[in-house]
Each structure stands twice: as C-alpha cells, then as structure tokens.
C-alpha cells in the first residue's frame, strides 16, 4: 500500500468527512419529508471498494451509525460489484438484508475512477410512506409484507431505471405519497452524486493511490482509537439487562440481555438470553442492533472527535442469536424497532458501566414515543405526528438532563403555535416539566415532561407506540429508578388508561395527557447535598 504522510492523511481524512457531511446537508435540505428535514432521520457516507465504511456524516441521527456496511455487503453478495457499470446503483430497504425497516431506503452508488470502483457513496433516508396496510404506521401488521413495499438488494441503472422510469414507476405505484417519497429518493441520489464528485476531485488533486491509502488510514485510525479505549477497560465479562414493556399484544416484559467481554483491546457483545421474537412489529432487525450497540460504545468509550467507521467494527464483535427480538427470522414485522434497539443500547451501557463503575451513567428514559392524532374530515385525513422527550440518567458528575430527545435520535417537538395554526381538531393546553420524575439519588435522573391535548372533534383517533410504562429506567449505585411514562384520557369524571402501544378513538371534549418518564438516579438519595435539594425544591415550586 502507498505510504502516506501525516499531512496527507489529515487533509484527505478531513476532506472525506466534510464530503460525507456535505452529502448529509444536501440530502436533508432538499428532502420533502419533515422526518428527514427536521428529524434528520437519514445518513450519508463513503465506503471503500470492499464495502467498509470510511466516513459517515456525524451530524445526522445516531441510530444509523455503523450499519451502512452491513447493508452494502449484502448488496455486493446479491449482485457482484464486478458486474456494475458507471451509472449503476444498489437500492434496498430489506430489513433481512441489512436495512432497519422498510421505511429506510438505502442507495449505494459506485465511484469509478479510471475505469474501476474505488469507493461507494451511500445515502439512506426514512420515508414517510412505503405502502403497506396503513398510512405511515401499520401497527396491526403480522408480517413484513403488511408493512410496505419490499425492495430486495438489487442493481439498477440511474438513466435507464430511474430517469426513464421503470423502477421509479414501480415504486410510485405502490406508495401513498409518491411525490414526496420519490422526491426524497431523488435527494438521496443527489447526495451520492455529490459524494462521488468530491471523491473524484480528491483523486485528481492527490492521486488515486494516495486517496485510497488515506481511506485505509482513516479506518486504521478509528480502529486504533477504539482499541486504545477498549484496552483501558479491565478485562472480564460484564452483563447488562433491560426490558421492553410488552409486544403490544399482551405479552411481556421482553428481556434484552447483553454480555460484553473485554479481552485486551478487543470487545465482544453477545445478546444471547434475549427474548424470542414477537408477532407484532416490536422486533428489531440485526442492523438496528448493530447501530444501537455501536452508538452506546461510541458515547461510552470515545470522545466525540472519533468519527466512527469500519475501524470500530474491527475492534468489536456483535453476536445476536437468530429468532430473538433482536434478530428475528423473516418475515417477522419490524416497523417499531426503536424500543428494542434502545434496550439493546441500554443493556450494553449497563454492562460497560459494570466494567468501569466510576464512568457509568444510570439508564435514561431512552424511548421513542411516536404519538399520532388523526381525523377524517370532508373526505380528507388530517394527521399530526410528534416524537417526545424523556429524562437522561444521572452519573457521578451531575444530574441527568431533563426532558430531552432520546440518545439515538435528535427529533424536535412541534411548536404549539404551529399546531394552533395547522390543526382544528385538537389544541395543546399545557406543556410542562415534571419535577420529581427523575430517579432520586446523590445525582438525580433527568425529569420527563407532560403535554395535555384537548380534543375538539368526535372521531379523532390516537395511535401511539412508546415504552417504559411498566419497566422504569434503573438507577445506579443506590440511585432510584426514574418515574414511568403514561397516558390517560379524561372524559368528564372518567379516567381511561391508554396502553404504551395503543389505538383509541376519542370524543370532542376529551382531555388527553401523555407524560414521559425520568432517567435513573446515581448514588444514594441521602447523599444529595443540601444546595441541590434546595434547587430541587425550587424547581418543583408552583408560583
């Protein structure tokens, strides 16, 4: 391999990372769907000719970290790269071939330089609708087919199949909002073209061999940093466990168990002992578990200046037994994979915390709360969807953060003034912090929040999936667990409980309250200093 100077390595490495970021910015800015534009539920990156991730945009959401290689390699198995020509691309959304769920469509485009593939540009985005049994979210699907259009790993040609229509027409015919979804796929292509253009510029400027050496060097660099961080952990085997409340059809809690083995500078995570797969869409496919695990390792082991790539995967082995909640067998549905992915993330953090107690962070609320109100009015559906917050776990240095987006996402809430302007079938009456919901401790867990909605029309439908209504975020070192989340309907004097995975028809005048829970506390509550107790009291004070 070509030797590379420190300056070339740093300069080209930085240029590759900024290319991945530029791809991400291009994708998000030009996307139609708010899921991509606002929640940044997308990812972009550059992979080398073997399918190894070299750089991934680090400004989009964490849940897609580290799984792009898994998918690309499945595509390369399905269609050998030797058969690819300039203008070809791979496209898939198959959760049993490396995707997270059907809503995530992945595009990989080879970068040819001097007639050979030196790299791939990758772009994935969460799409609003990919067909299936219900708009956006079909919680009653019993298999993958019910969840939407399945696009297996395959090779297509941009000019022939997309611009001139075949693939485009086929996808467009199977989805409910073709303008938006097709437009968003086009943004993915645009991102890939940008990545390839930057890569070619770099080759022209520095020489292809130097750029390839820099890509290899970037992977080796991340591997060295991750291995150095792993080597600093004491050797041994550590176990962490957490639970998904239920599968939404009456069975649960569902165990998620991570066994982390540290041996020198290598780390292995095994999810043996996790619950069997379920019949509802609460299963998480393998790629999601890889991402959840790598995100936990990245936040625990390294500072935020380590751009994760294949190097991290080389230092870490992840094993998930087939037929479990975390690696179900085809064709189990997987749409709501985030809750199990969060528990995998939490179980790995607990195991790491056991390895290095002084750096441990108590478990957070760490839940995706998808909250959807819809109403059929004059033959037209009006849909409101928002994602909620929760408290983070406390640690030896400080309290957990209050009411903030989960660690695997970065979604914003919807402004009350935007809701007031856009929706006439409900109104938000309160949005407040819930002091006291963070687990007590020397350092307290972060608090959750409550939102109160007044329903203004009969027949408004609530669809919700969330978690931690039954299993709280645990405390650490004597800290107490965070409070549970919950949801009720107040109908006159009546109080109706809503389950964490539910679908309910509401009436005008109903008041719906949905609250998120807190993170776990750290250290014994009686060790909390007076000044902080006084601050808690001030926080809880109602004027």
């Amino acid at each position: 391999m070509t030797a590379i100077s420190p300056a070339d390595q740093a300069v080209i490495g930085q240029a590759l990372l900024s290319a991945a970021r530029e791809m991400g910015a291009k994708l998000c800015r030009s996307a139609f769907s708010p899921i991509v534009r606002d929640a940044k539920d997308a990812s972009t990156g550059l992979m080398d000719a073997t399918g190894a991730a070299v750089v991934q945009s680090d400004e989009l959401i964490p849940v897609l970290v580290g799984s792009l290689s898994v998918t690309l390699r499945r595509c390369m198995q399905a269609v050998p790269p030797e058969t690819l020509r300039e203008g070809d691309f791979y496209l898939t959304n198959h959760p049993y071939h490396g995707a997270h769920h059907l809503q995530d469509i992945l595009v990989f485009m080879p970068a040819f330089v001097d007639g050979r593939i030196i790299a791939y540009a990758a772009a994935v985005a969460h799409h609003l609708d990919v067909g299936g049994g219900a708009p956006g979210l079909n919680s009653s699907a019993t298999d993958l087919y019910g969840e939407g259009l399945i696009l297996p790993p395959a090779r297509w040609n941009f000019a022939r199949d997309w611009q001139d229509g075949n693939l485009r027409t086929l996808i467009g015919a199977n989805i409910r909002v073709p303008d938006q979804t097709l437009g968003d796929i086009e943004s993915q292509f645009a991102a890939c073209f940008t990545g390839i253009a930057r890569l070619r510029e770099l080759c022209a400027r520095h020489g292809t061999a130097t750029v390839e050496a820099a890509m290899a060097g970037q992977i080796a660099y991340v591997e060295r940093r991750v291995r150095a961080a792993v080597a600093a952990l004491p050797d041994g085997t550590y176990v962490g466990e957490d639970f998904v409340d239920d599968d939404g059809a009456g069975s649960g809690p569902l165990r998620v168990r991570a066994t982390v083995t540290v041996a020198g500078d290598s780390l292995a995570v095994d999810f043996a002992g996790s619950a069997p797969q379920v019949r509802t869409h609460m299963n998480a496919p393998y790629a999601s578990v890889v991402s959840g695990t790598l995100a936990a390792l990245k936040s625990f082991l390294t500072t935020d200046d380590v751009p994760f790539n294949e190097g991290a995967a080389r230092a870490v082995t992840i094993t998930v037994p087939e037929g479990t909640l975390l690696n179900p067998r085809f064709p189990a549905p997987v749409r709501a994979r985030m809750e199990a992915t969060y528990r995998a993330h939490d179980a790995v953090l607990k195991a790491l915390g056991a390895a290095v107690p002084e750096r441990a962070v108590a478990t957070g609320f760490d839940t995706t709360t998808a909250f959807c109100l819809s109403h059929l009015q004059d033959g037209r559906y009006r849909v409101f969807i928002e994602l909620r917050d929760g408290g983070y776990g406390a640690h030896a240095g400080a309290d957990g953060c209050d009411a903030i987006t989960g660690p695997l996402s970065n979604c914003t809430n919807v402004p009350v003034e935007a809701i007031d302007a856009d929706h006439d079938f409900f109104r938000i009456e309160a949005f407040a912090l819930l002091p006291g919901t963070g687990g007590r401790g020397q350092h307290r867990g972060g608090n959750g929040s409550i939102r109160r909605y007044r329903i203004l029309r009969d027949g408004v439908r609530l669809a919700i999936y969330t978690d931690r209504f039954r299993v709280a975020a645990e405390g650490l070192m004597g800290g107490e667990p965070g409070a549970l989340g919950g949801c009720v309907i107040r109908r006159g004097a009546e109080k109706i409980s809503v389950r964490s995975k539910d679908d309910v028809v509401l009436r005008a005048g109903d008041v719906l309250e949905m609250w998120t829970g807190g993170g776990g506390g750290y250290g014994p509550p009686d060790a909390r200093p007076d000044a902080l107790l006084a601050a808690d009291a001030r926080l809880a004070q109602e004027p």
Partner: protein
Amino acid sequence: MSDSTPRRLAVGVEIGGTFTDLVAIGPDGVRVAKVPSTPARPDEAVFDVLDAAGLNPSDIAEFVHGSTVATNAVLERKGARLALLATEGFRDVLILGRQDRLRLFDLRYRRPKPLVAREDSLGVPERMLADGSTLTPFDAEAFAPRLAAFLDRGRYDAVAICLLNAYANPAHEQALAALVRRIAPGLRVTCSHEVTGEFREYERASTTALSAYVQPVLDAYLGRMEQRLEAGGFRGELSVMQSGGGRVPAAAMRRNAASALLSGPAAGVMGAVRQAAQSGVRDIITLDIGGTSADVALVEAGRPAMTRDALVDGLVVQMPMLDITTVGAGGGSIAWVDEGGMLRVGPRSAGADPGPACYGRGDTQPTLTDAHVIAGRIPSGKRLAGGLVMDGAAARAAFAPLAAQLGLSVESAADSVVRIAVASVVAAVRLVSTERGHDPRSFVLVPYGGAGPLHAAAVAEELGIARVLVPPGAGVLSAYGLLAADHSLFAARTRRLTIAPGAAAEVRQEIAALRSDLAGRFDALGVAGDRRLEVTLDMRLLGQAFEIGVPLPAEALETLDEAALLAGFAAAHERIYRAPVDTARRPVEVVSYRVALHAARAALPGLAGPRRLDGQGDGPLLIEDATATIWVPPGWTAAEDAAGNLLLTRAP
C-alpha cells in the same frame, strides 16, 4: 489633526478579542490604529486607540462602534436578573425548548443554562389563537395580586413577556406589560411581539429573553461611552453595529439589544464588501483569520448571505443576521498528535497572551503562527504590527518534539500544520458555498484579519478559486466596515395567507405597513440617506412544514400580482430542491414577511494605504503592509489596482 479638521471625522472602532482597531476617515485621508484590547473594561481600549491615533473626541462627527459586549454578557451570564411571563401551562417554554441536543453521542449532555430559572417564570391566564382571536381573555385586575406577589418576591431587574400567538395579536402582551409597569414602575419590560413578529413560541421567547437579558448591560456600556465621549467634546452621532450587517443609532440599540448579539464578525464582512466594490468585484467569499478562529461568509452581487437564526452559547436568537461560519483555525491554534496518531491543529489556541511560542512570552506549544515563522513567511527577528518581534528559535524549539513524534523534519512538520489549517478553512468555505448551492470558483476570495492574507492563496488553490483580493489595511478592515455599513432596520412578521385572487394586494399592504413602520423609526432617530427596501417572503406549499425564502425585487413591488408571487416561489423552490413544483395544482401560502430598510451611507473613500507593490510580482513572494503579511505562492502573480487592492491571480 485636531486643530485642522475639527468635527469632520468619521471614526470606526472595533473591539476584537485581541486588538481594538480604529479607522478614521476625514478630508485629509485615512488613518488607522491598533491597540491591545482590555477585556475586563472594554471601553478603556476605545479611548486608548483614540489616543494612539492622536484623535480627540471633539474631532469626531460620526462615531461607529462594534463590540462583543452583548455576546459576552450571555457567555458569562452577567446580564439582568430576569423574570418570564408566559401563557398559563407553558411557563417552561425556555427550559423545554425544542427538546433537541447540540451534541450527539453524549450521555452526560447538559442543556445550555437557561437565562430564566423555573421559579422565576409565571403562567398568565389568557390564550390567544393563531388567527388573533381570543380564547381566554386576560383579566388584568384578577391577575394583579398574583403578579405583584411574584414580582415582589423575585427582586428582578427586568421582565420578558412571551404569550402564545402574540405574533398574531399583541393585545394581551400589551395589557400585561401595562400591568407590570403599573405594579413595578422601575422594571424594564420586553414584549416578544416587539422583538420579533414571528411564530414558533420557543424561538420567539428565547430571542425575547436574550434581548431583555443583555439590554441593561448594553445600555449601561453605551451610556458610559457616550458620556465619556461627550465629556471629551464629542457632539456627533454615535451608532453601533448589528448582527445583520447594518448599523443603528446607539439610542435605538439601548432600547432593543437583541440585534447586537453576534454583531462581532459582521463589520468585517461589510468592510470587505465595500472595499472589493472599489475594484468592481461584487461576488466574494470573505475570510477573516484571527488568533483563535476563522470566519467565512459568502456575498453575492454585493449582498451578504443572511440567515434568520443562530445560537448564542446554545440559546436561539431569531434575528436577521449575516450567515457566517466559524472554524477553530487561527494563528494561535495549537498543533498536536492525538491518541490515534493523527496530526491535528486546534481547536485549542494559545490565544493572544501568552500567544504562540514565537511571541517569546514563554509558551512552548507549537502553533500555526510558529509554523509560518519556521517556513519564513513571517520573518523572524522583525517587528510586526502591534509591536511584537518574532523569535524564530522559539518557534523551532516548540516544533521539535512534534516533528520527532511524527518522524519529520521541523520544516516538514511546520508545512504539514499549515496544510491542515488550510484544509479546515477550506471545509468552512465549502459549507457556505457548495453546501448552499454556490460554486466557489465563481467568487473572489477576500482575506483579512491578521492571518487571512497569509493563507488565502493556499485556500483558493484548494478550492479552484483563481482570484484573491487583499484589501489594504486588512488587519483593520472590520473597523473600516463599521464606517462602510448602511444604517439598517429589520422587521419580521408571521401572517399566513394562501395565494388566491386578491392575495397580492394583501401582500403589498403588509409590506407597505412594515416599510412605513421602519421608515417611521428611521425618521424618529433622525437617520438620513437614500432608503432601499429589501423584502423576502417565507413561503411554502400548503401542508409543508418548512418555508423557503423568496426574495422579491424591490422594483417589482408596486406591480406585484399573484402570478409573480407564484413564479417567485417556483423559482426559489427549484433552486433549492432542484425539482420543479406545480403551483397550479398545489396551493401555496405566505407564512412570514421579512423586511429590511437600509439608509445608504454617503460616499466613502476606500481604505487605500501606501502602495504595496509596484507593477506585477510573481510568487513566491512575501508582501508586507502595516497590518498584515501577504503570501503569494509559486504559480500566482500579484498586482495592485487603482483602488489599492492587491489582486492575486493564479496562473492558468
């Protein structure tokens, strides 16, 4: 000068982190001065630099000032003791925000410290709706006792009021403000509808709180300065820079301080625009490299790119402001090797004091400036602007351990560090250009700041930019920019309106109302000058969650019709999304109006200094002027034009 030219000078004084700079322009020409900043009492340096320039306040007809006083008050949390009044049920608006994080992968994440504690916020029983109608009336008499008890307990300096949907109907905010003034006459009150007329309650509340928080600090600072200037005989006009790149009379800023936040880097951009225009160059990318960071902005046809919000210490401020990208690469940036063996430059900086090793003040860490001393681009042993003598031996000594660690010679390690710093700046330029749909190659790079002209050609080379324009006095260009800026007032207002027959008339009316409001404020402040209106509408397809900015040409406003509105939207949509939009089939709405009224500053001479180059010079070539060092690499040629700008051109 004091005797010969009484009260005819225009003087700009810009306080930076390291130096405080002055540019004075009068009938006799231009003079510049530079003194060390005095961060503990920033106004001291203002009078130091007047002394250094030999100026007396009585010489000055027009004094324009730029400082980071407002921003620093936030960074150091040294603003007002503040209370928040919000709609009942929503008093946590500042604490909860939009629930997103500024950093990912951080389980120990902490929110930026809010400016108002929870116990200092009070819910107010009232509720307006989005159409401006009242759902729950505000009963001032019933609320008065609770408010009085709350204010009495808190001993506040100031109150920020942000009620839901006040952008649509400010009546409740006005009634509440009147009640506060009645109960506590000494309190300063800031209402959200007066700070910004836009929807989205968190962003508006945050901007309102920031404004209320810094206002007493800025008011006191400007008051003190005005007093001292007047004591020295100053009878002219005092104005200050805003983050949007225009200035306003100090009296206006003392009442509404939000536009002072992030005004720091704006002056330099305006100076670069004006100075490049002297050479007929209007599409530029500005590059300001100082001691700790590099600021980059894009200017098209003489108009700097704007953004509508930004963060101050993690807190949202929603104001029209120049779209400036900052990276941690400056002369003081420290080079190091991380635990994975990667050579890095910054973000830690040796700052101005002790500064780089070559300053000879005892710091021994290798910096970007040391790398240039080693490479000979900053001459060792020579006295520079600001009085420092560069110690080449100290620079080499600082680089020796780094070079050994990398297995390189000291020269080659220094060269590597410069290349990496240049790569950081290149990434920032890409962010403001290619990432926003502009090709950097069709722009001219305009460097300034102490270290800008040293790096500009290398940055241009990497980006394929063929021309670099180095203004004279590049080290004091920000101070010149204060004088170059127009007076500007900005207004924004959310008024949703679907484009249908008759809509254009409403749009014209709304714009006319905003214009006359701004014009009235200019008149009240006594601001003269030719006025120029800039209008941008935030528009979207009905049902979209995001608006796009649609600029309306001022000359077309009189005859604006629905077709023109739709065409403007379609064009902007296509530019941003690269996809055509069928406005015949899908309804389009206006969401917000953004209006800027500029009062042009009178003709201003350029910042020409002594000639720096006779004829044409071919690189490699080092050119020094009084405030900066200019590096012309091999393959580039330099020539000075009639405006005094040095034009660097890459050989084709």
